C-alpha cells in the first residue's frame, strides 16, 4: 500500500493500529532515532475558487519524527502535538521503505481499519444530515 493511503488510515484511525505496527517492527529490528519528535510547521497552499489561483493560507502546527531502520529513513508527520504517533508513523514509513516482510501481513489490517473509518465518517455525516433544511419562499 502506498504512503498516501497508508498515512490516511493510520492518522484517521484511533492510533491503536499504528502503535501495534510500530511496536512489532521495533521488537524485531534495530531502530535508530534520526530526529526526535519535534514541533514544526507546514505552510498551507490553497486554490481560491474565484480566479482559480493559488495563495498561502497560513501555517499549521505539526509534529515530525525521523527514524532509520535497515538503512532506510522513515518520516512521520502529523497535524498537532502528537509525539508518539509521529514516531510510530516514522517507524512504519521506514519499515515500508525497507520492505520488511512484516509489512505484507498488515495490508489486510489497514484495509479493515479503512473500512471502519469510512463507516464512522458516513455515520457522522448521516447524523449531521438531521440538520438538512428545505427553505421555502412564501407568497406575499
Amino acid at each position, binding site marked *: 500500500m502506498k504512503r498516501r493511503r497508508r498515512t490516511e488510515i493510520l492518522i484517521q484511525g484511533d492510533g491503536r493500529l499504528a502503535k501495534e505496527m510500530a511496536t512489532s517492527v521495533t521488537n524485531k529490528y534495530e531502530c535508530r532515532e534520526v530526529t526526535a519528535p519535534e514541533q514544526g510547521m507546514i505552510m498551507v497552499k490553497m486554490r481560491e475558487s474565484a480566479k482559480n489561483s493559488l495563495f498561502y493560507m497560513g501555517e499549521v*502546527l505539526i509534529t515530525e519524527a525521523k527514524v532509520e531502520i535497515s538503512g532506510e529513513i522513515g518520516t512521520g508527520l502529523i497535524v498537532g502535538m502528537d509525539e508518539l504517533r509521529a514516531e510510530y508513523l516514522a517507524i512504519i514509513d521506514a519499515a515500508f521503505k525497507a520492505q520488511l516482510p512484516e509489512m505484507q501481513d498488515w495490508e489486510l489490517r489497514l484495509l479493515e481499519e479503512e473500512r471502519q473509518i469510512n463507516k464512522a465518517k458516513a455515520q457522522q455525516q448521516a447524523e449531521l444530515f438531521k440538520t438538512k433544511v428545505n427553505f421555502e419562499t412564501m407568497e406575499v
Partner: protein
Amino acid sequence: MGYVPVKGGTQAIDASIKRLTYERLKGQEILEIKTILSTMGSMVDQVMSESSLYSPELAALAIKQGEGSMEEAVFLMRAHRSTLPRHYYSETVEVETMLVERRISASFKDIPGGQLLGATYDYTHRLLDFGMMEENAEVNRKWLQDYRDSLSVIQSGQEVVYFPKVVDYLREEGLFETFEPDNAQPTDVTKQSLQFPTTRSARLQVMTRGQTGAVTSFGYASLRGYGEVHPTVGEVRVGKVPIYTAHPNKTDLDPEDQFYIGEIRITEVESFVPVTVKNTNNEDALEFEIGYGVCYGQNETKAIAMSILDQCLEHPNTEFPTHDEEFVLLHIDSVESTGFISHLKLPHYVTFQSKLDSIRQVKKEGTAVES
C-alpha cells in the same frame, strides 16, 4: 522618527509582573486547557485565524495565558510561530474534498446536494440562558446520552458524501466566467514585506490572517457606501479539509507517495457580486463576479467580509477606502495595529519635550513681538 532609549524601573517592572500573576491567581480557580478547547471553540478559532497558526492546543494556551485578551493571545501565538521551523509546504488544498459540517446558500434555496445548517447560532433566541449559571455536569451527561441515543437509530449510507461547489454548477451553465487553473507561485507575506501594488495571493494571505473585527468593519463599510461591493452569499461552507505534502527531497512525483498529515477545519465563502460590463455590442450588460473568503475554524462573518474586500480590491478605486489595497491591507493585521496603538503607552518623553519646547518658543516669540 528616532527612538530614544529610557532606562530604569526594573524593580517596578518585576513587581508589576508579580501583580499580573496575582490578578490571575487571586480568584483561586484554574481554567484547564481542555476546558477552553471544549467550551471556547469560537475564541480558539479566532486566535488561530488571526495568528495564522493552526493549533487549537496552542491557541487555548495563549487564551489562558492572555486571560482571554484576543490581542495578547494572538501576539503570543505569532511570537511562538517565529520560533518554529517550517520544513514543509502542503500540496494544494482542494476544498471539494472538504468533509462538510455546514453548508448554506443565500442565493439559491435548492443547491445541488442540499443545505446543511450544522451547528449555528443563526436561529437561536439571543436571550441569556440563566441556567448556565448553575450548570450541572450530571445533567449535561444525561443530555449527551439522550442526544447520542436519538442519533443511534439513524441509518448511515455506505459512502461519505462530498458536496459540489455551487459556483461550479453555475459555471457549467455558463453564468460565471471559467478560469483555467493558475499555478503561478504565490507570494508569501511572511517571507517578504508587502510592496504595492501587490499580488492577489498576497492580498488573500493578509486578509485571511486579518483581525476579525477589522476585516468585518471594512467589509461592512463597503456595504454602507464606502465601497462599491454589496454581494449575495453564494455559498458558505464549514468543514475539515485534508492536508497532504510531498517529501521535501522527493524526486518521484507520484501523488500516491505523498504524506497525509491530518485535517484542518476552515470556513470558506463565495460571494456573488453583480458587475456591469460592456458586451460585444458595446452595450452595458450585467455579469457576476466572485468574491472569495476563507479562514481557519468557524468564523463566517470574517470569511464573508473577506469575500467582500477581495472583490473590492480586485477593482481598485481610490475614491473608496475599501477599494484601496494599502488602506485595507496595512490596517487589518492584529499584531501591527494593536502593537502600534499600544506602543503609545511607552515613554515618549524626549519627543514630547521637543514638541513642548517648540510651542514654548513660538509663544515666547509671539509675546516679544506684541510687547
